[in-house]
């Protein structure tokens, strides 16, 4: 058991820190959450800066420990998060890298890294959310194209995406996990309609996507026809394994800010508030240690994160909600003012126990795949 870093890793950290200190002051101001063209330009611009500085592929090529250092330092420095590049960098990119042909990798990976193309995720459907295998969007083969009809929902970044990692049913007769394929669909193809959805936080974080006889070249299929479920499981293990690392660092920073606010406004004198803050400090310290544990385990086993990500997500998603509940307790009546910091974050945190597989689904995964309990 070792928590120290190698000289090479420390050197990477120092170099990154220095670079961040140099470039962050020159960044343009962050666009508002609803300014989608602005967000696209901002997030792609940041990715381009990473590319020029040699950090673009840190999520793919670097060792897990180096990636951990990258996420820790960028978050501590207040650098932009992956934002609209999320799906490309953390889902579609790694999936194409692992499962795509040489031609597919050459076509899609460089523009993700250079900050030129945005991806969105077309997995969930109105009738099939966490029960992903029940998806109904169908793709009929017509010459060298699939003709796709159906609809997707909860599609983050759909309004500004160039590509969609799309799950479609290519064999309606096969058992439900078997007849699915993974396609890269251009978002400007005729027949694609995007309708933004408004979240309970008032923002347009995601959209509904309607697909009406959309032609997607067969060459855009990643993996074999009807093998999309397995390809998807590769994607989801990335999602649950590494997607929240930077956020844990962010939560620890926010917790410190909440403590300072409590001291400033007198809530600190309430021992109940202090105890809750202390408990959350224990919680986020432990989640950071669990992150280091999982990363070390991934490093030892060769990269693809295991189901341990479900353990992490279950606890993290709850802790994040408790964090902003404590913030509300510290804010008092101000917690009802949308202009105050943390209030929108509190609303956003409500999605964490639902998105990327609900807590109930995660408990099934832990119960069945880790503990070996029988399926219900």
């Amino acid at each position: 058991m070792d928590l120290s870093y190698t000289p090479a890793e420390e050197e990477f950290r120092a170099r990154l820190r220095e670079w961040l200190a140099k470039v962050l002051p020159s960044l343009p101001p962050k666009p508002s959450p609803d300014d989608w063209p602005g967000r696209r330009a901002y997030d792609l611009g940041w990715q381009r800066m990473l590319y020029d500085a040699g950090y673009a592929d840190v999520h793919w090529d670097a060792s897990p420990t180096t990636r951990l250092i990258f996420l820790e330092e960028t978050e501590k420095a207040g650098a932009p998060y992956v934002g609209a590049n999320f799906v490309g960098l953390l889902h579609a990119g790694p999936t194409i890298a692992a499962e795509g042909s040489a031609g597919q990798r050459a076509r899609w990976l460089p523009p993700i890294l250079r900050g030129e193309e945005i991806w969105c995720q077309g997995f969930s459907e109105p009738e099939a959310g966490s029960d992903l295998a029940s998806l109904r969007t169908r793709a009929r083969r017509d010459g060298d194209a699939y003709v796709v009809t159906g609809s997707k929902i909860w599609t983050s970044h759909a309004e500004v995406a160039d590509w969609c990692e799309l799950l479609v049913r290519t064999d309606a007769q096969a058992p439900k996990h078997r007849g699915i394929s993974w396609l890269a669909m251009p978002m400007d193809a005729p027949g694609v309609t995007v309708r933004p959805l408004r979240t309970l936080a008032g923002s347009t974080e995601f959209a509904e996507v309607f697909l009406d006889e959309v032609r997607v070249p067969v060459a855009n299929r990643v993996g074999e026809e009807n093998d999309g479920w397995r390809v998807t499981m590769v994607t989801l293990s990335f999602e649950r394994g590494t997607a929240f690392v930077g956020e844990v660092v962010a939560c620890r920073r926010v917790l410190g800010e909440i403590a300072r606010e409590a001291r400033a406004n007198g809530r600190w004198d309430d021992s109940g508030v202090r105890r809750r803050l202390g408990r959350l400090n224990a919680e986020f310290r432990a989640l950071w240690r669990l992150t280091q544990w999982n990363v070390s385990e991934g490093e030892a086993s060769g990269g693809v994160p295991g189901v341990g990500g479900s353990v992490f997500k279950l606890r993290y998603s709850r802790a994040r909600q408790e964090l902003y509940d404590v913030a509300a307790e510290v804010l008092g009546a101000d917690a009802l003012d949308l202009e105050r910091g943390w209030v929108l974050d509190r609303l956003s945190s409500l999605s964490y126990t639902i998105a990327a597989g609900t807590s109930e689904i995660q408990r099934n995964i832990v119960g069945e795949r880790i503990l070996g309990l029988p399926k219900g």
Partner: protein
Amino acid sequence: MRFQLTADQRALRDGVRDVVARIFGREALWNAVDRGGGLDRGWWRELGAAGFFSLRLSEAEGGVGLGVPEAVLVFEEAGRALLPGPLVATHLAAGVVPGAATGEVVVTAVGGGGLVEWLEEADVVVGEVRGAVALRSVDPLTPLHRVPGADPSAGLDDLFVLLTAAEQLGTAVRACEAAVQHARTREQFGRPVGAFQAVKHLCAELLVRVEVARAAVYAAAVTVDPVDIAAARLLADEAAVRGARDCLQVHGGMGFTWEADVHLCLKRAWVRAERGGSITESEDLLARELLIEAG
């Protein structure tokens, strides 16, 4: 950074698990319960011979020369086996109190809440126990005295708290294993109860608490930082106490009987949570650290 057990650490854990299973398996556990809590000096010496108490002493001092992380792994196994006795106090006395390292001498200490375990069986007591009053201990395997007016956290050094947390982690592991074992085999309505989500989800949360506590306890063993230890302690207490309660729930009516092991886990977890000192103080330490870190 390799925050994983090394091959040597895994070997040590497995070796300790074997020794503990041999000298204190389920039968020995229940014999001890039936005996009414007497301490078996025979296997206490066996623990000593296996290096349980001298683990961190240098080889020149007759020890094994290992560190805090290894001690934590060993105490986790002790907690998993529900090994009784003032293990932490005797381990910490090795090298200080003659005979403690080899298990010839039993050492106890005043813990949190002014509690003293195994006072009548101990040869040496660390701390002031004048006027100690016997309690009717809730845990059949931990006789307790209480020192009136004792400072609730006096004499509680960080290692005492950390090794107690390691024992809590081990007991949480045992509760999780017992719950899963029961959920896999006990059938109701024609299927194993673990197939029902309500039961499956209790088991999943048991494991989540174990894994979070494990990361915290192991990290605290590496850093030996007081704030890390306070965090580890809170999470390990939670994993053991909540874990035993959920394990009891998974067992249904059987869980409420004396003959099921579950209550032994829960009662020991309660004793250790108290022995580790005031929970409020740990929470307060962690809260204050937020301000220090933030500047």
